């Protein structure tokens, strides 16, 4: 076993950080509600099941059920979090199952909120540490169960290891007491406790009942990394088989006895509402039960809903309703006007300063050479393949206190329950929440507009379960879009070509201000880290720098889109790094490395990607003879560092068609919990980012989204998908985010390659060659 350390107060873990290098003694000096081991209520159990704490149950048949409080949206969290707990428990992986727990404060996501504070990653100052601690403490009590911000592993890593270790100690204690032997002489492997000297053994299922009656241990020992059996192994996805035979249930697959279906048609203008409607024709159609108007809720848009016996009857009826719309404040908004507004804001005011180092203004003035460039990025839709949907069963007559049950593919179980309860005129405690599998999330399902809408619709039909589902057209035109953004970058070089100054200013709407307004009615104000993340929180050692963002209020709902601010800020920043390297007559790799002298982890990631990709080596042409070129980018987001090298060419048959042949990615995400999952997420993040880089653009006319379905909003297809190779840097640092960090670097890597290939510097997304 490794080194032993006693930590008496859990806040020390939060403040001090935790290098995963040795075994660790964890004690609980703090009682509820700040502890995260046991919930406010005992876990619901079935016959023969015992809950040993708030995170796991063990059944008489040895099945270990791990409570996973994060939603599974493809990122592999059911597998990775079960691994984390099962490893400390020394469970038999073949007997491990997963469930989503009831909503409880112990499952609130702390990491994603503390990560959202506007501090530079290199900042270790007392203000940051104090603010982080206070926020973490607050979030444990009033926070949200949320799956987002690439935070699932980071947030659950310690509590779930502690839960596994605590339950293991209780099982050992139960065995040792029964056998009258010292607990320290017992060993655990694959769900069996053994005592070698007496030759006795007992399975978890045999011990669980007695173990559950024992007090929780005051302190437990966590494993040293060398003792991990599951963590670090490339484990296959747990729920894969169900997704291969049609038995997996996504939200839209919810089927309840007597279920009815509702289809909605919302005002085509974002934020609009129903002025009046005529449902005569719709109500005469087969199977139609009701047609109602539904107000836009939680940032959504108002519309009409047709409730019918089958999904197709509902779709047909909703389309047959004649509606007069009140188009609302967005009715005058077009993409061109929106872009002008952002450009004006950028010119007028540099906004809130997120980072300042040295005197960048003077350094720019004194520079031998200055470079400046303006960039822009459009609105983007999430386009989850499973459209928005939610099933609500309003049961006001129920006698058990549960007045409604909700089945939702949501990333925010607690917020969804709250939104549904409000829409039904209930308290949250009267609503039972069931989180289904998610057919993609990408941040769209951090919003609860569709949950509140489904609840309002189901309220019209008490006692009957109603599934509200959106058509693709409604989904595409009523998203919470990735904010549009414009940016101006400037750099100064001295006579030797060394960087002396770096400034970045951007303008665009704030997601967080809008989110707080629509969820909690809080006035939107103050800085929003997500507007400038990716621009200011980066490792480059700028000798002097100023980085700011000016928030522009727009009547367009904007939301968290995979990698959020990083998704466009990385494009601006990494494109500009290449522009400055060119001006300095330096190789883009060497130029970056020179700015990372005190950031060896970042330099190592960059070197690994470059070496694996053959940076600097001749690049053979494509199979059809087209010339290829490489481009690279480095970006840090959600705690992880990713470098990518893209190889691109142009289609000889259509020289404006960009082809990406190969992407080499290197990632340092700290300790790699499930390398298989990390590789999947890198594939996913690259493909997601490429769809945006090559095609992604939502445009507005009169406040109406012009892209209604996949013919107008193309996604990358299999034939256009590059070969993706992922290098995972070995690390013993605590685990960091994986779902999003692969997305930001791909657009600039491709843009930089295109410049090398064509001499065209593309400063707007999506990338379109002249």
């Amino acid at each position, binding site marked *: 076993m490794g080194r032993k350390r006693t930590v008496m107060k859990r806040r020390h873990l939060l403040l001090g950080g935790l290098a995963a290098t040795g075994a660790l003694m964890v004690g609980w000096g703090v009682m509820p509600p700040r502890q995260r081991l046991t919930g406010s209520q005992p876990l619901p159990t079935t016959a023969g099941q015992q809950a040993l704490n708030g995170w796991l149950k063990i059944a008489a048949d040895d099945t270990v059920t791990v409570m996973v409080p994060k939603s599974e949206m*493809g990122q592999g969290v059911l597998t990775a979090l079960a691994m984390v707990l099962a490893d400390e428990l020394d469970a038999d992986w073949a007997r491990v199952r997963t469930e989503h727990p009831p909503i409880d404060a112990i499952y609130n996501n702390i990491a994603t909120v503390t990560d959202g504070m506007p501090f530079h990653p290199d900042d270790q100052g007392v203000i940051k540490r104090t603010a982080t601690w206070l926020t973490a403490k607050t979030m444990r009590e009033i926070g949200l169960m949320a799956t987002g911000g690439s935070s699932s592993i980071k947030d659950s890593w310690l509590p779930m290891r502690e839960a596994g270790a605590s339950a293991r100690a209780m099982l050992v204690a139960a065995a040792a007491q029964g056998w009258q032997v010292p607990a320290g002489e017992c060993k655990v492997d694959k769900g069996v406790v053994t005592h070698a000297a007496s030759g006795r053994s007992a399975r978890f299922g045999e011990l669980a009942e007695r173990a559950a009656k024992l007090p929780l241990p005051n302190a437990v020992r966590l494993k040293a990394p060398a003792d991990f059996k599951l963590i670090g192994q490339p484990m296959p*996805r747990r729920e894969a088989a169900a997704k*291969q035979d049609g038995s997996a249930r996504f939200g839209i697959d919810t089927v309840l006895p007597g279920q009815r279906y509702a289809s909605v048609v919302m005002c085509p203008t974002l934020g609009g509402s129903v002025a009046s409607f005529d449902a005569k024709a719709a109500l005469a159609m087969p199977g139609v039960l009701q047609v109602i108007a539904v107000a836009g809720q939680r940032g959504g848009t108002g519309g009409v809903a047709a409730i019918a016996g089958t999904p*197709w009857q509902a779709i047909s009826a909703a389309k047959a309703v004649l509606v007069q719309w009140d188009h609302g404040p967005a009715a005058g908004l077009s993409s061109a006007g929106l872009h002008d507004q952002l450009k004006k804001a950028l010119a007028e005011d540099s906004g809130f300063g997120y980072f300042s180092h040295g005197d960048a203004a003077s350094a720019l003035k004194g520079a031998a050479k200055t470079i400046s460039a303006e960039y822009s990025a459009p609105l983007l839709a999430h386009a989850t393949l499973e459209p928005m949907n939610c099933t609500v069963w309003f049961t006001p007559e129920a006698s058990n206190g549960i007045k409604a049950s909700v089945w939702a593919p949501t990333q925010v179980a607690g917020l969804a329950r709250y939104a549904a309860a409000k829409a039904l005129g209930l308290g949250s405690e009267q609503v039972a929440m069931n989180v289904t599998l998610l057919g993609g999330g990408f941040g769209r399902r951090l919003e609860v507009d569709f949950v509140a809408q489904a609840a309002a619709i189901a309220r019209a039909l008490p006692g009957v379960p109603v599934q509200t589902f959106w058509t693709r057209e409604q989904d595409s035109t009523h998203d919470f879009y990735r904010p549009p953004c414009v940016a101006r970058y400037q750099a100064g070089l001295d006579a030797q070509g060394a960087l002396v100054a770096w400034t970045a200013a951007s303008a665009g709407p704030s997601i967080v201000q809008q989110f707080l307004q629509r969820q909690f009615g809080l006035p939107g104000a103050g800085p929003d880290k997500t507007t400038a993340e990716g621009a200011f929180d980066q490792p480059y050692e700028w000798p002097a720098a100023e980085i700011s963002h000016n928030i522009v209020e727009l009547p367009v709902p904007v939301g968290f889109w995979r990698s959020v601010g990083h998704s466009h800020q990385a494009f601006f920043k990494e494109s500009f790094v290449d522009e400055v390297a060119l001006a300095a007559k330096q190789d883009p790799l060497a130029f970056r490395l020179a700015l990372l002298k005190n950031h060896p982890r970042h330099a190592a990631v960059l070197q690994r990607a470059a070496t694996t990709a053959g940076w600097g080596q001749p690049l053979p042409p494509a199979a059809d003879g087209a010339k290829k070129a490489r481009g690279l980018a480095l970006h840090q987001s959600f705690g992880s560092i990713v470098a990518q090298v893209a190889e691109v060419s142009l289609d000889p048959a259509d020289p404006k068609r960009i082809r990406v042949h190969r992407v080499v990615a290197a990632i340092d995400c700290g300790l790699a919990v499930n390398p298989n999952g990390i590789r999947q997420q890198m594939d996913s993040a690259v493909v997601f980012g490429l769809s945006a880089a090559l095609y992604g653009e939502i445009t507005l006319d009169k406040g109406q989204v012009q892209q209604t379905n*996949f013919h107008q909003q193309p996604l990358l297809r*299999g034939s256009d998908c590059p070969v993706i190779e992922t290098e995972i840097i070995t690390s013993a640092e605590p685990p960091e985010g994986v779902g999003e960090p692969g997305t930001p670097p791909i657009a600039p890597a491709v843009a930089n390659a295109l410049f090398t290939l064509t001499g065209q510097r593309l400063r707007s997304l999506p990338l379109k060659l002249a």
Partner: protein
Amino acid sequence: MTTNLKVNDKTYAVAATPDTPLLWVLRGDLQMTGTKFGCGMALCGACTVQIDGVPTRSCVTPLSAVGERSVATIEGLQGREITALRAAWTAIDVVQCGYCQSGQLVAAAALLKATPAPTDAQINAAMDGNLCRCGTYPRIRAAIHQAAGKLAAG
């Protein structure tokens, strides 16, 4: 009035009107939810089923167009191709969110039946209409090749 519909070797008397897309008959009337709704315009492939072995977008196929033919969905698809594909899907750990995978597997099974050893170009031709928002394309390609190899080896 009902329509007889043969799905996964069973015949159902379906009350849906003849213009109802097969997708919604499967998902609504028969409560077979393995076949997914993605776009409603044959643009994404999530709704792919086989009709007499031919991969078909059920979201734009009216019930009346199916007639006497046999529909096979992800829940009931039989044969060595789908068996080999599922094994390869598992070995390569293809799926992520999984929403498109019913359609991917049903399309891939039809491909292998018609073209037991597909080239990359043939995979592109057969599979390019099946979108995956999670980007499982490289693993899908690898898994189809692996399944083809296993089938060829007997």
